[in-house]
């Protein structure tokens, strides 16, 4: 049974390092695509999800965290506060990938919905108590709407997250699922997480 240190080393060796770097870069540049296409989703964890599926949980957690730190360095320091959320995205995605969920589209969709719920649950306290319920973004209108119904700031932020996060995460998961399926086996088997993606024999 490999030790935790050995598993970590395996997860972050070989093509994992450049892939993690690509994951960080894709997280930060995917907005260029969604805004050019005028599609109201963020997909800003797509790189994290990709690394989680192909490498493992800790590589994904590092990818997501670094992306948020770099976003802070580019003039948006607020993203640092959401590092716990992106770490959770990496851990959850790797967990379900390891259990074969990324072999089946229905399971990928279910996994994305659950991921969205987890992200909303973790974002809500940050959004409520660090940001006071507003971030000067489009989702503020949803928060204001829920607050006008008499909910306090935490529940309003949670309801807003539950409305938008599952959709965003399902789209992210489906894109990664469809893309990874098209990888030649020769490339796929290079990654530590590939075993759970190949059909069991």
């Amino acid at each position, binding site marked *: 049974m490999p030790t935790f240190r050995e598993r970590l080393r395996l997860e972050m060796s070989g093509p994992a390092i450049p892939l993690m770097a690509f994951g960080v870069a894709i997280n930060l540049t995917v907005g260029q695509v969604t805004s050019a296409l005028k599609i109201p989703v963020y997909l800003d964890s797509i790189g994290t999800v990709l690394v989680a599926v192909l490498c493992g949980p800790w590589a994904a957690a590092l990818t997501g965290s670094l992306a948020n730190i770099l976003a802070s360095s*580019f003039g948006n320091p607020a993203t640092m506060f959401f590092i716990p959320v992106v770490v959770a995205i990496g851990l959850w995605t790797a967990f379900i990938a390891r259990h074969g969920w990324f072999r089946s589209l229905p399971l990928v969709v279910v996994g994305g919905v659950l991921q969205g719920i987890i992200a909303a649950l973790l974002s809500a306290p940050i959004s409520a108590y660090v940001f006071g319920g507003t971030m000067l973004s489009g989702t503020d209108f949803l928060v204001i709407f829920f607050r006008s119904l008499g909910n306090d700031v935490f529940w309003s932020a949670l309801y807003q997250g539950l409305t938008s996060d599952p959709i965003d995460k399902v789209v992210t998961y489906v894109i990664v699922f469809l893309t990874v399926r098209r990888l030649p086996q020769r490339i796929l088997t290079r990654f530590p997480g590939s075993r759970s993606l190949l059909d069991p024999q």
Partner: protein
Amino acid sequence: MIATKLSFVLFCWTAAFALPTTVQVVFMHATFVLGRFLPLFRPSSAQARRLYVRFLLYAGLLSAAVIILNALFVRNGEILLDLGVVQFSREGVEFGLRVSVRLVLMSTAVLVFFLSTPLRDLAVFLDSAGAPAVLTSVLLLSLEFLERLPQRIEQIFTAQEARGAPVRAGFIGRFRSLFSILGPLILSSIVESVERSHALALKGFPAPPEHRIRTRQPLTIPAWSLIAGVVAMIGWKLWESF
């Protein structure tokens, strides 16, 4: 210098939770003043200055929004202003002020750190301080890819549009185009990761531990003072709790 700046960020973050709002306001203004001196830290400071000014505007708007929205929606306690249709509560204003001061203090400290520290210098510092090679190499490679990906995205976008992808059509068409643009982007990134891993290994990466040179700089007096301040604040908060 980087260690001192990191200590400063840690100090501000601890102060944001441990100290009363009135004291936080003082530190917040101190970070604003530090931000004014950004040109001293980096040669390419024009962009840093612009980002800093843009952030200050954002922080100002955000703080106003936080205070006003919470004043409107927190209905407990004393009403400060009653306009008939809308009422502003004292508790809401206080909550908004506390949150916005904390947020601005923490964010400004982080921003001043990053705007005064080139990321490559940070990677070198982390490496010399003993951070794992994975961390510094992913950080440096990310910077390289961040320069190239926007151009690659544009190429894929143009190529797919030329092939007839409905990138400017209705919502459904544009949504389908999302897959035809992100798919090639992700696939090419994965394939390139494999090639690059070969190239890195062929040059001896990762270097064996005995070849990794670490020259740790001792902490400066300001850094030690800030760390002592952090410890003192945490100690004071714990003492206050019990």
